[in-house]
């Protein structure tokens, strides 16, 4: 099982490659599990065939934490855990790994790194800010992926308990605070950077638009998303600016 660790880790980078509404990331999980199940093919071919079928069934989680499931499910197959119990483990992991990953990465690390990049950009560090942000983000992402697969393989059916006791849930509030702070810091700097040298009417127009957009978002979200509002307002403004005599 250990032999396939590196290949499984690399395959997890494309775990959403065949994402679909029927099995969601199931096929990607099966694809990443294949190297880990190779030894089982030699040890117990009948069990391997069942395990391969199970590995590609419906699953969904945060992609960066999918290694926890891949490792735990592979370990459970080697431990001869009954198929029904493995199916229940698979179902039980879906929501927690999705929610935890969304909170840590999508709502935490991504805005924190992007906010930091914007602050760096506005402070004049251009490419350094972008490069450092990418390096930091991917270092955390890769390290988390390796930790996830290793933890899954080591703990098997006990993976839920292992995750609950790990650094990950404890770090969610901290990364959230960092994201809030860095995005908060980035916003005024972005406004100044984008409106630098513009006439005062342009600054007032931008401020007025921002207030209206915030009010509309507050009142009509989620029906009116920021993209829909942007499309409508910008389209109208282009038409006005174009056609005004």
């Amino acid at each position: 099982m250990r032999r396939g660790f590196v290949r499984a880790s690399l395959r997890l980078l494309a775990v959403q490659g065949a994402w679909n509404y029927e099995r969601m990331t199931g096929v990607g999980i099966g694809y990443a599990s294949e190297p880990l199940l190779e030894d089982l093919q030699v040890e117990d071919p009948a069990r391997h065939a069942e395990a391969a079928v199970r590995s590609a069934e419906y699953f969904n989680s945060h992609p960066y934490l999918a290694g926890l499931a891949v490792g735990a499910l592979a370990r459970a197959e080697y431990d001869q855990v009954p198929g029904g119990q493995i199916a229940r483990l698979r179902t039980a992991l879906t929501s927690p790994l999705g929610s935890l990953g969304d909170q840590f990465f999508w709502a935490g690390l991504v805005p924190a790194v992007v906010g930091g990049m914007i602050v760096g950009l506005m402070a004049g560090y251009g490419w350094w800010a972008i490069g450092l942000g990418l390096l930091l983000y991917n270092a955390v992402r890769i390290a988390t992926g390796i930790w996830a697969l290793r933890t899954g393989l080591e703990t098997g059916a006990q993976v839920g308990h292992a995750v609950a006791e790990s650094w990950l849930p404890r770090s969610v509030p901290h990364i959230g605070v960092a994201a809030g702070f860095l995005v908060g810091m980035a916003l005024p700097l972005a406004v100044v950077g984008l409106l630098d040298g513009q006439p005062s009417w342009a600054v007032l127009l931008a401020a007025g638009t921002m207030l209206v957009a915030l009010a509309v978002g507050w009142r009509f979200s989620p029906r009116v998303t920021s993209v829909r509002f942007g499309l409508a307002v910008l389209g109208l403004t282009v038409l006005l600016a174009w056609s005004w005599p």
Partner: protein
Amino acid sequence: MPVAWSQLLGLLGWGTLVGVDLVSFPQALLSRPLIAGAGAGLLLGEPEAGFKIGLVLELFALDVLPVGAARYPDYGPGVVGAVVLASGAELSFVLGIATLYALVLATLGGWSLQWLRRVNGRTLETAAAGLAAGDAATIRSVQYRGVATDVVRSALLTALAVGLALWLRPRLPLTGRMELVSAVAVGTAVAAAAGGAIRSAGREARLRWLAAGAGLGLLMAALR
């Protein structure tokens, strides 16, 4: 400003990469508008335009969490096209139109992701027997076809974004009046990011830190 063939190929490759990065592989943050814009600006020799257009679209993107089966825009290829559209022009005139252009393509990109997911679903149907037998070759085949289809999707979206931008660029009415559109784009983008940040912050510590960060940012902006 003419765009060389080598630059066009570079833009097509970059747009495809950032498109695939969003969902399929390797999800390394390349698909963020700020990165996609910076890369396109670098390829065109206009990093300032790349940074600024990427920044405006990044503010929109900060409002959306790409969670699970949620529908979200695919900004990358559209941002690459928007930087092409803005290249060689006065940025304060073209920023707003480029933002609108990228938003239209990002929406189209979001729809194309739904299409991709349905195509992957149809691939599953044709591979049903192999999957039911746990055939490793079938699983690999479904996986590779999924990634390959996303490469084609992203390449087509980028080709459309860049091609249309090259066609539109000499036809844009870039007068001083277009500064109106740029100001509205900045206001809308900042509202999107601020709305998203406030929603994500809830009512606890994160909200206090958001306010503290905004205060520090204001101070730094005032001291610039």
